[in-house]
């Protein structure tokens, strides 16, 4: 059984003549513990897909189910609760609260869920240690490098033990080395810690860390590739496919 399932998912921005179709009847399935990368040229709808899966935005038609619960049937409060408990988010711009330190930032989802501060912070410390920030527990975001900030964001995404982690261009604001480290960390999230990870990226090298790549163009799924040891260098394969899409 899939963790995430979309059915004819569509999103149209605006109306009438100015209407822009961002997603057009998309059907994807994501299994538990799977690391999926979503790729495609700019404006292909990859971020929109991520937002809809994450319940951040509502589709124009079609539906998203997470653990067989259709997000469209949920009230704002219920949807919020689902995001809090089942989904972790990692953003391109890290989006940490500037006035809180690493532990406090990472503990936020649990605190918002009403957990005791001590318990939430203990878990946050645990996760920060796992992502390699045991020495920076009490640094504020402005005292951390981009890669370190993104690690805090990953710890925050994992602290509530969600089933699904959504990452929108998580390496878009990082240098090559930090990008590799973060991509490796996300791979670990799926492989070692058993979460499903959906990552939007336009970087083939980063996408190569995933198990499966979903290619989007003009709002529809045009290709899907499962990466394994048989098809050799993942990044090469992906580049080839991207070039083909661009034509």
């Amino acid at each position, binding site marked *: 059984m899939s963790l995430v399932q979309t059915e004819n998912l569509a999103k149209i921005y605006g109306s009438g003549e100015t209407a822009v179709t961002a997603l057009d009847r998309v059907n994807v399935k994501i299994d538990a513990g799977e690391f999926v990368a979503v790729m495609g040229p700019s404006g292909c709808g990859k*971020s929109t897909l991520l*937002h809809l899966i*994450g319940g*951040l*935005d509502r589709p124009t038609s079609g539906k998203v189910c997470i653990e067989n619960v259709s997000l469209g049937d949920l009230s*704002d*409060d219920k949807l*919020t*609760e689902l*995001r*809090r*408990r089942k989904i*972790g*988010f990692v*953003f*391109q*711009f890290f*989006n940490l*609260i*500037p*006035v*809180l330190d690493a532990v*406090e930032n990472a503990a*936020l*989802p649990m*605190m*918002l*869920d009403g957990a005791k*501060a001590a318990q939430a912070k203990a878990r946050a410390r645990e996760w920060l240690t796992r992502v390699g920030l045991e020495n920076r527990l009490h640094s504020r975001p402005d005292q951390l490098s981009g890669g370190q900030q993104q690690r805090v964001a990953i710890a*925050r*995404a994992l602290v*509530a033990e969600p089933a699904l982690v959504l990452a*929108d261009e998580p390496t878009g604001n990082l240098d090559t080395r930090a990008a590799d480290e973060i991509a490796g960390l996300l791979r670990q999230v799926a492989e070692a810690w058993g979460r499903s990870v959906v990552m939007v990226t336009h970087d083939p090298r980063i996408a190569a860390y995933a198990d499966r790549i979903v290619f989007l163009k003009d709002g529809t799924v045009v290709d899907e590739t499962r990466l394994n040891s048989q098809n050799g260098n993942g990044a090469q394969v992906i580049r080839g496919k991207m070039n083909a899409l661009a034509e």
Partner: protein
Amino acid sequence: MKIQLTLAARYLWGRKLRTFLTTLAIIFGVFVIFGMNILLPTMTHAFETSVLNASGQVDVLVTNKSGEAFAPSIMHRIESIPGVQALSGNLERTINIPANYYRSGSVGALSLIGIVPRDAQQVRDYTMQKGRFLQNTDTRAAIITSSLADTLKLELGDELSIPTVNGAVKLKIVGIRAAQTLPGNEPVWLTLNEAQKLLNAPNRINTIEIKLDTTDAAQRTAISNAIAATIGDEYQLGGLASGSEFMASLQTAQQIFNLMGFLALFMGGFIIFNTFRTIVAERRHDIGMLRAIGAGRRTIIGLFLFEGLLQGVVGTAIGMALGYGLGVLIVEGTRGIYQQFLHMQLGAPVIEPGLVLLTIVLGVGVTLLSGLVPAWNASRVTPMEALRPNVVTVETRRRLNKWTIVGIVLMVAALVGLLSQNISLVALGGFAFLVGLALLAPALVKPIAQVFGAMLGFIFARDGAAELAQGNLTRQPSRAAITASATMIGLAILVAAVGLISSITGGINTLLEKTLGSDYLLVPPSIGVWGSDVGADETLAERLRSVYGVSAVSTMRFATTTVGDQTINLLGIDPVEFPKVSGLNFSEGDPNTAFEQLAKGRGLILNGVGATTLKLHAGDAIKIPSPEGEQTYRVIAVASDVLNTKITSAYISQENLKRDFHKTEDVFMQLNLAPNANRAEVDARLQEIVARYPQFKLVSGAAYLNEMRSLYTTSFSAFYILLGILALPSLIAILNTLAIGVIERTREIGMLRAIGATRKQVRRTILAEAILLAAMGTAFGLLAGLYLGYVMTLGLNASGLYPLQYSFPYAGVVAAVALGLLFGVLAAILPARQAARMDIIQALRYE
């Protein structure tokens, strides 16, 4: 809960300057309300203590309702009531002591108490520290307290001089009692006979002290009730409330200060609202992220309300602490003045629990209320916001929305109200005008910014600072409008008050000349507290009249009476002499025959305040209690003069005052000289006569007129300073908006610097923006202020309190423009510096 509190505190702490400035707005409002409200209760307390002090040591006290002295015959009726053990009829009177009367020490007033020694000792304990008690046969003998003896450095056997109706009199000190411990004037006891002579009240007493023969509470109540039934309606149980007229005018002052405090808080609300709106805009990313990772809408609302709550609580606490300081400062600073001029001994500052509660509710309430709408808006931020790049929003929707239309309607209604000349419509119009202007403000921002921007363009022509500033303001018209509205309220109050005051001053000057136009005045130590001024008996006026060259002497006598709760000062004049030396400003009745009518039967000329509070008009009748029972007086006219502008008072003939109130004491005199009089000679002769009555000061009319004028000018300039302080929150508002604008546009400023703007150019852009904002607020403020000033003058005129002529407040307009621009420039200093010093790379990276 906890996470919201943590976040709120961290965010506030993270932006210390802004938090400080926003909180300052609350601090200021709370400060004014709390500080100013300490004074009145402190004075009331002092006042009550001195009344209590006088009445507290005896079982029952009986006085006449009019407050005046009465015949002792009523004592026989009380004596025969079962349960009354002893009683003592006294004549007590506070007498004002002129400044520097005693060389050895300073005393503002004394409480003269005439007693029958044997009776008094049966009612109270008169333990002597030194010397002996009074005897019936004593003349010119007195008992004082050891504290007064210390103050004036007097010993047993020394003489104490006091001003009396027969001139200064020396009393021999035969006994000294223990020191006075309670607040109040120092008492001086003498025999009743002697007191009656010195105070020109033959065979009169004004208090009856009664001792009961039981300590059982129920029985005492029964006896008190029996006494009350016996003495009838004209008398009352309880002490004389001298000085209640001052409490009344203090209450008016208090209300003005409260109004100022409320307005300051109101402006504070505007500022907080503005800040919160900006905070919401600034933190869209953070809010969106919180929503994305699972914060509910209520959590977001709570976060902002917590921030408001924290600021409200801290601001209120600091405001109250500072306000307490202000209260203490005022009480301590004016202690001497009250002692000297009002003859009131102030105790420690009094804080009423109700005030504490009210201040907290107001301070915290205003903050929370102002944060409510922005908090609600924040909760509407979608999680998607977290993922969008940070772009400063530009308001593009058209401003001619329903609120603009409501604003226009309100302002038109206000103008119609003004034209109707109906006073309640005019007053309602004043409010409608302010609200209408505030609603209209967003739509006016763009045109006004264009006009002033063009003007600024001449100054900042070369580097385009004016255009940038104009653009910066008009892209957030509602924020600029709210800032301008806050400035508007501050400056409108200033302009309106100046308009009102200059109208009042004009009116008062006319009055002053009419009232104090005589050649000479004999002035008692305190004008206004007539009741405790010791006057002179008829011989002084006769002596003055006999001076060769004096053509007319008009004297004024005084009594009080109480109608309902309203104390009325009755001023006795000679209907023939008074018009020769003085005059009144009539608003009702016939000025030509008013004084003639005063001489016939019982009639009175009421002042404007009296006519308004008692709701009387010329031709009405009024029943007033007197020591001779209730009397019916006819209102001949309504007219005012300078001597009685604030307090309810009425002129009656001296004949009536004598018959009904038994008062013949002259407390104030005005003299005119014959045209051919030798001024120097008359002057010398008058000085000689008046020297025997040290309670009076002989001044020339012209000199006194100038003295009064400068007194008014001084007190009004103090008022102007207060108004200026009230405009202070507008400075905070402008500063706040500018600072927020700079923070919000950090990246833009970095870009400007990167493409080649110099620090100076950035600074000038902010300065131009500040001046534009201030100019807008000032323009609104002038408009609203002129309107309100006109409305208030109309209102006061219609109420008949003062005769006013509207005069255009040129000074106020100039002051408001100067203050507005000054605030603009001052407010720009910090944000401009911050913007100019910005590190380009960091600014470009700023999230």
